[in-house]
Structures are given as structure tokens and as C-alpha cells.
């Protein structure tokens, strides 16, 4: 047994070594070493380097556990602390692999073959760069090659050991530590973003200064993150309960009219803010426009009346026109709503406190109110919905321009993913050329609206063109669908892949140049207007995308549970039998292509208006791959999965700019890992998950039975 554990350790160590060497030679370690996670202590590159050793130790312990205790049944057989020695072995092997790399780098010049085997990598590996001197001085072996290699091995060993120990911790503790580490890495990665979002006058600036240094987390920031994560994870299970309790207290003790008034005030204040944001100025008015003034007794009601009268008498002939002229009035209204709301909240809290005190004084056993379950559930749903909607509405103003841009990209892909989900997930038609519909949508919008006289000429507005765009792309869907009606599976995939490329080449061709602009594309696509509001910039486009996402989501969700959705499902399962049931499979296939196409066209149309200029090369095969990939990551056929997948495959790489070079690698790795670890996707639709998990359960049962019979066998023979 010990022997096989040792072998396992060596094998896992070798895997870890290969993985780290790969990361080094691909160039990831070097690229990432320019970014700090914790300033002055560790860079992203070294985090990755060390994490590999840690993960190797952890996985090794997991394997040891599986080896000696196959079915997780017998407690006495669980791995003991002394087994961590094998994780240390794995760590040593990982370290030695790196040492070999260092030696090779030292002796030979392999840069001709492997561009990334640079001198900088060499320095990074010897821990001479990218980590703090304090960390190196923990192991003062001195300077030079030998000392550096020794340090590398010692670090890997310790980290392997730590990884193994981590596995042995009780699950709750382990989870909070791992989440803590993940949070530190995540916050470190997001430091640029946080700077934009937080480092501006106000309370957020102090918070930013506390946690960040400007390049990465500060050391106290890292500690705070770890502690906060641990605290939150241990308090986590109380949160839903207290949420329910707060709501039940409010529903039971606050009179209905107060609740309704408060909710309406809140809504008014939120909506006015939104109007302000969209129509007047690209920032939200703060809570109570004159909050500090309010506190310093400059107090309100007189001020408010003043503002209101100002607002009412505001000069209407302002040349800016539209909403901007009513700014003072809106501002006054916001102040009024805010002050009333705050007063109301204060009064309600006071009321509730009084009730609580009363309750605890009386000898009544039933201290907490218990409104009827149905009422409570409804109230909870309403509150959650309200909070959710409010959060969705206020994200762009809160997070700032760049994250909103990322959200817009994610949203465009969510819409596309929802459309592709109809074709692939519901109807089972593997379409690899989905970008064609996105392109048709974008190009038809461009041609119909552009003010550049050399192409187009219709010069419609966005809203005038949109119905036409949808119809045109729907027809394109039918045109693509018709020739591939009799194809299935891999043939369909290849042919549609071809269609996607054809679309791009047609746009590029000289033949269509007069209409589509050739390689120069189409310029001067006007912005989108609704009334006086101009949707320019990601923060405003966000709302448009949000609405399209919601509409697409609603449509696909309804389709899924409809007769049409069932027919598609039957067709996906067994086309011939679906036919025998009376499903007109030809029509339903065409319908799937058309529906998928017209949903993608909306995404394409907004894309065109957003950029103002479109080129053929924006519509390459990578768009199709991303759209399909996000379905796979989220779980094919699952609608929430589309959203999760879009955030994972579009949002994450956009946020981490360094990744862009490795985007394809990242996709590939994500796909492989998904297929190995969670083939049903992150948020599988119920039935697919059911099926796969069913198989897993069978397998587990099978393994348990095998293990039991083995145990019985060894008992009887022993």
C-alpha cells in the first residue's frame, strides 16, 4: 500500500511538473508576472506557479483517499495526517521538474525553438523577480543558481504539503480557506477595474486605499479579504434565514399602507435617478443630492420647497432642449422622494424596534411573527424581484464605463447564445456557422441606416430598420435551413461552418462592394435614439442590451414549454419517430433556424449601431465558436446556463486583458475541463443533468458494491 501511495505521489508530482513547465514555456508565467496580486509580495505569474504545486499536493491527497478508501464509506480508512508526506513527495517532484527546466535554460539556448524560454523566465523561476525579498529571505540560501534551485524545491515541497493538509481539513474550514485564496486572487486581478470603480471622491476612496495599492492588493488588503471571506462563509448559512425573518417581520408588523408608501417612494426615487442618468448627466445623483448639507442641519423642507420652486420656474426655453432643461426639477424631486423615504424608513425602524421590545417584554412564547406561509412566500418573491430589478438597473452607473462595456459584450453574446440554444439545444441541429446570422443582422442594419451616401441610401432610424432587419435575417435563416434539411450531426456541422465563412467572404468580395463596402466595411451607422435619449456609450447601451436579453430570454423560455418546444425536443431525440407522431419535421427545422437567426439579428443590429462601423473581419468563425462554447460551458439547453456561460467565456477574458493572448488556450482548457469534470455544464437543464447524474449514481453504486465485495473477500481470506 505504502509503495503504491509513493508511486502515486511521484506520478502526480510528474503531472504537476509537466503542467508547470507547460505554463512556463507557453509564456503565461512571464506575461502574468507583470501584474501584482499582492503588491510587493507576489505577482500573478508566481501565484500561478505556486498554485500548481498547491493543487498538485491537494489532488494527490484526493487520489490517496480514493486509493485507500474507494467508496468514502469507512471512516477509519480515511487518510491520516501522516499521509501528507506523499503530497510533499508530489511537491518535491514538481519542484525537481522545475529545477530541470532551470538547468536546461541555464545550459542550453532553447529560445530558437521555444520563444518564451526567455532570460526573464529564468530569473522568475529562481525567485529573483516578481516576489518580495522578504519571501526569499525566509529561505536565506544566499545568491546564485544552486541557492535558487534549492529554494524552488523547498517552496514546492511546502506547498505540496499545504495542499495535502488542505484536503484533510473539515469541509467547511477547507471551503473558507480555498474561497479566501480565490477571493484574494480575484480581487488582485480586478485591481484595475476597482481603481476605476472605487477610486473617486467619497466613501469608496477610503475603502479603495485600504485594500489596494494602485497596482494590486495591499498586504493588509489581502489579510482583510481572507478574514472577511472566512467570516462570510461561516455566516453564510444564516443569511437566507435572516433574510426570510426580516421579511416576515416587515410583512407582519408594518401596516400595509406604510409598506406600499415606502415601496412607491423608493421606486420613484430610483426611477428619477434612472431618468437623470439616461437623460441629463452620466452620473447618478448621490443619495440626497445635498447629503452633507442635510446633516449639518441645513435641513430640508425649506430647501426642498426652494428646489421645487426653482424646478417649476426653470427656464423652459433652454437650448439644450429635452430632459436636460428639467434638471433642477428632477433634482428637487429626487431630494424630496429621498427625504420622505428616509423619514419613512426611520419611522418604520422605530416602529419595529418598539414592537420588538414589546414582544420581548411580554411572556408570549411566540416571539417572532409568522405570517401565513403563502403570504410570506409572495412577499419574499416580490422583495427579491424588486431588489434584482433595482440591481440590474443600477449596475452601469455604479460600476463605471469599462465594466459596462464588458457587460454589453456579455449581453450581446447572451442574446446570441439564447438564439443558438434554440437551434442546438432545443432542436438538436448543430450549427457551427451561427455567426452568419449575426453578420446578416449587423450588415442589414448598417445598410439600412448608414448616412454614408456611397452605400445604402435608405437612411432609416434604428427602430425603423429593426423590423426589416429581423425579417431579412429570418429569411436568411430559412435560406440556410433549406439546403441542410436532410443533414444531421457532423455533416450539418461542417456545412453550416461553411455557410458562416461564405457570409464573411461575400461581405469581403468585390462583387458586393457597392452594397456592402468590401473590406472597408460600412461606416457612419447612426446611434440609437428613443425620444430625447441617445444611447451612446456602454452605460446607456447596457439598458438596450438588457431589454433585448430579457425579451430573448422570455421568448425562449416560453418556447421551451410550448408545443413547438416539445416538437423540437422530439425531433432532437428521434427525428423519424417525431415524424411518425405527426410532427412536420421539415417545417419545424426551418422554424428553428429562422427563430435562431432572428434572435441573433437583434444582437447583430445593436452591435452595428454600437460600433458605428462594421468590417467583415468582425464576423469570423471565432464568434460562432464562442457562442457554441458558452452553451457547452453553461449546459446545453439550459437558459440560465447561457447567461453563466456568457459571463465565463466572454466576461472573464474581457476583464483580464492579459488573457487576450491566451484566449483560445483558455477556451480550450475550459472545454476540456468541463468535459472531464462537469459534462452537463455549470447550470444544466434539469433533464440533462438528471440523466448524467443518474449514470454517475449508477457508477457510484457500482463502485461501492465492488468495494464491499472486495472487502468481504479480503475478510474471508484473511
Amino acid at each position: 500500500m505504502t509503495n503504491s501511495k509513493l508511486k502515486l505521489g511521484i506520478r502526480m508530482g510528474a503531472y504537476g511538473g509537466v503542467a508547470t513547465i507547460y505554463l512556463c514555456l507557453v509564456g503565461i508565467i512571464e506575461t502574468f508576472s507583470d501584474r501584482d496580486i499582492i503588491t510587493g509580495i507576489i505577482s500573478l505569474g508566481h501565484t500561478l506557479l505556486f498554485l500548481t504545486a498547491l493543487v498538485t499536493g491537494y489532488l494527490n491527497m484526493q487520489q490517496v483517499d480514493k486509493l485507500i478508501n474507494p467508496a468514502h464509506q469507512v471512516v477509519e480508512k480515511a487518510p491520516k495526517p501522516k499521509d501528507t508526506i506523499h503530497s510533499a513527495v508530489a511537491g518535491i517532484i514538481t519542484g525537481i521538474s522545475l529545477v530541470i527546466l532551470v538547468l536546461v535554460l541555464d545550459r542550453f539556448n532553447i529560445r530558437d525553438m521555444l520563444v518564451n524560454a526567455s532570460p526573464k523566465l529564468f530569473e522568475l523561476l529562481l525567485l529573483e523577480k516578481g516576489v518580495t525579498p522578504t519571501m526569499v529571505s525566509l529561505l536565506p540560501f544566499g545568491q546564485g543558481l544552486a541557492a535558487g534551485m534549492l529554494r524552488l524545491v523547498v517552496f514546492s515541497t511546502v506547498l505540496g504539503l499545504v495542499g495535502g493538509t488542505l484536503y484533510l481539513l473539515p469541509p467547511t474550514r477547507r471551503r473558507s480557506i480555498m474561497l479566501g485564496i480565490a477571493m484574494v486572487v480575484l480581487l488582485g486581478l480586478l485591481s484595475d477595474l476597482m481603481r476605476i470603480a472605487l477610486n473617486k471622491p467619497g466613501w469608496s476612496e477610503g475603502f479603495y486605499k485600504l485594500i489596494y495599492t494602485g497596482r494590486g492588493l495591499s498586504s493588509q488588503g489581502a489579510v482583510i479579504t481572507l478574514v472577511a471571506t472566512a467570516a462570510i462563509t461561516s455566516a453564510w448559512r444564516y443569511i437566507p434565514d435572516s433574510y426570510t425573518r426580516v421579511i416576515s417581520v416587515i410583512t407582519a408588523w408594518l401596516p400595509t399602507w406604510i409598506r406600499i408608501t415606502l415601496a412607491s417612494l423608493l421606486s420613484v426615487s430610483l426611477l428619477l435617478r434612472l431618468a437623470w442618468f439616461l437623460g441629463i448627466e452620466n452620473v447618478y445623483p448621490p443619495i440626497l443630492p445635498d447629503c452633507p448639507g442635510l446633516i449639518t442641519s441645513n435641513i430640508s423642507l425649506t430647501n426642498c420647497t426652494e428646489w421645487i420652486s426653482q424646478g417649476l420656474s426653470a427656464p423652459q426655453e433652454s437650448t439644450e432642449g429635452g430632459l436636460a432643461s428639467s434638471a433642477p426639477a428632477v433634482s428637487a424631486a429626487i431630494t424630496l422622494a429621498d427625504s420622505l423615504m428616509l423619514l419613512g424608513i426611520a419611522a418604520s425602524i422605530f416602529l419595529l424596534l418598539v414592537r420588538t421590545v414589546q414582544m420581548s417584554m411580554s411572556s408570549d412564547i411566540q416571539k417572532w411573527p409568522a405570517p401565513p406561509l403563502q403570504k410570506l412566500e409572495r412577499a419574499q418573491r416580490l422583495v427579491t424581484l424588486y431588489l434584482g430589478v433595482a440591481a440590474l438597473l443600477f449596475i452601469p452607473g455604479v460600476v463605471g464605463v469599462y465594466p459596462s462595456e464588458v457587460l454589453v459584450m456579455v449581453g450581446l453574446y447572451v442574446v446570441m447564445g439564447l438564439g443558438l440554444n434554440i437551434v442546438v439545444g432545443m432542436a438538436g441541429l448543430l450549427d457551427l456557422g451561427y455567426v452568419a446570422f449575426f453578420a446578416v443582422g449587423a450588415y442589414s442594419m448598417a445598410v439600412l441606416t448608414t448616412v454614408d451616401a456611397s452605400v445604402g441610401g435608405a437612411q432609416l432610424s434604428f427602430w425603423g430598420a429593426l423590423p426589416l432587419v429581423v425579417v431579412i435575417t429570418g429569411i436568411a435563416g430559412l435560406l440556410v435551413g433549406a439546403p441542410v434539411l436532410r443533414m444531421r450531426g457532423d455533416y450539418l456541422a461542417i456545412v453550416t461552418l461553411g455557410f458562416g465563412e461564405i457570409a464573411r467572404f461575400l461581405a469581403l468580395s468585390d462583387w458586393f462592394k457597392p452594397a456592402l463596402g468590401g473590406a472597408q466595411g460600412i461606416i457612419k451607422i447612426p446611434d440609437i435614439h428613443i425620444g430625447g435619449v441617445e444611447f451612446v456609450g456602454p452605460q446607456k447601451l447596457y439598458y438596450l442590451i438588457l431589454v433585448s436579453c430579457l425579451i430573448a430570454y422570455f421568448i425562449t423560455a416560453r418556447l421551451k414549454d410550448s408545443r413547438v418546444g416539445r416538437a423540437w425536443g422530439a425531433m432532437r431525440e428521434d427525428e423519424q419517430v417525431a415524424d411518425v407522431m405527426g410532427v412536420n419535421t421539415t417545417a419545424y427545422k426551418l422554424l428553428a433556424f429562422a427563430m435562431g437567426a432572428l434572435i441573433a439579428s437583434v444582437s447583430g443590429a445593436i452591435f452595428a449601431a454600437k460600433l458605428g462601423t462594421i468590417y467583415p473581419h468582425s464576423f469570423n468563425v471565432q464568434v460562432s465558436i464562442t457562442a457554441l462554447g458558452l452553451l457547452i460551458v453553461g449546459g446545453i439547453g439550459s437558459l440560465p446556463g447561457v447567461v453563466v456561460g456568457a459571463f465565463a467565456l466572454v466576461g472573464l477574458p474581457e476583464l483580464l486583458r492579459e488573457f487576450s493572448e491566451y484566449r483560445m488556450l483558455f477556451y480550450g482548457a475550459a472545454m476540456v475541463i468541463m468535459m472531464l469534470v462537469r459534462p452537463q455544464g455549470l447550470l444544466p437543464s434539469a433533464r440533462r443533468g438528471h440523466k448524467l447524474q443518474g449514470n454517475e449514481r449508477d457508477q457510484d453504486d457500482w463502485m461501492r458494491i465492488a468495494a464491499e465485495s472486495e472487502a468481504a473477500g479480503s475478510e474471508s481470506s484473511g
Partner: protein
Amino acid sequence: MQADVRQMLKLCHVDTHYGPIQILRDVNIDINMGEITCLLGGNASGKSTTLRTIMGMVKPTSGTIEFDGERIDGLSIQQLVKRGISMVPENRRIFGRMTVRENLEMGSFLRSDRSGIREDMDRVFGLFPRLKERVGQLGGTMSGGEQQMLAMARALMSRPSLLLMDEPSMGLSPLFVQQTFDIIQEISRQGTTIFVVEQNANMALSIADRGYVLQTGEIVLDDTAANLRENKMMRQAYLGET
């Protein structure tokens, strides 16, 4: 022949090809209303092809098919289902990733009379109580025998007047075969005309009123079930006598 026997389905001189290969040669079959008719024959003799030809999944190259006195060759599957023909395909082929209920709903896909559908749902649950216990289970996770029940129930959901079945006893244990044939008789008693393809000639002839024997695409025997059971050639070829 008695006067009250009405013909429901009539195949006249039907030839069917798959591409250049001729499978059915001059097939003539009459199916009387309310009866159970069985089609026997060796492997690859063209039994499934006969059913597929009736169901409009392949078009006959010559000959005619009449249903209730009207020609139906050339009609689409949907039209045939609407007219009251439905089929239990070979190898069950239920929808694996749909629940039992959804499978049944697919059976009534072309109907829109909700109350009628609910009635028929109750009716098939009466015939197959086991399905009622498992309405929420995914079709693919059911046992082979249960899947066969589901396939039959699904076909009944279109309220057919003619039910075509392709080897309902395939792969079932003897007890299950007996049950299946009991249920077929029950369906027939409830007024559905049945045309069943079987390898299990003994069993099929014991419940059928009429039988046809197909050999390399040609009808070689055609008689009442009782006569076929006595037929010498039949006994040697299919009933296991030497």
C-alpha cells in the same frame, strides 16, 4: 364472407423500392375493421417495410393503398395520423430525454381537443398502470419492457382507428410477452383495428383473426389465423415443427 365485415385498409399490388433495390413485390393485404391481423415472416423479408409503406414513410413505386375506401398512398404522415393511423415503431424508440408524460403528449401532438386527450391519457393509464406510477420518469431510464408499454401507449394517444405494431414482443421475457398480447387483445376489444408484425408466430396467431406470411417481399400465405395454425408449410417454417 359476412356482410357486416368492413374493409379498413387495402394494399393492392404494392411494390416498394429502396433506391434500385426492390423490397416488396406485388403485396396484397386486406385488413378488416375491428380485427387483429398479423404479418409473419423471416428476417429481412420486408415486414417493417410494409408498415413503413402504409405509414407513408416510404412511397410505394406502384400499386395502391386504400384506407376507409379512400386512396392514401401519397399522403403525408401528418395527414395519415390525422385520419387515424398510428404506429408503434420497431425497437420502441421512445423519446429518451422526455418524461413519460411528455412522450404521451407527443403521441397526441396533432390533436387539440384537451378533454379528449385527458380522457385518452386516463385510458392508457388504465391499460398500463405502471406508466401512471412513473409519469415523471425520463423515458430513457425505464426498463425495456416499460419502454415497450410506453411506445404502445404513445401510439394510442392519437386515438387511432388503425394501430400498426412492429414486433411488440421483441426482447421481452415470456411473462411480459403474454401480458403484451393480452393488452393488444384488450386494445382490440376497445375498438381499435390492429395490424401487428411478429416473429413470435405462435403467439401472434393465437390472438389474430387473420394472418399473412411474407417471404422475400412476397405474400406467400394468406388465410384466417385458425387455418394458418393448421397449415403444414406454416407449421414447419414458423411454428417450430419438423
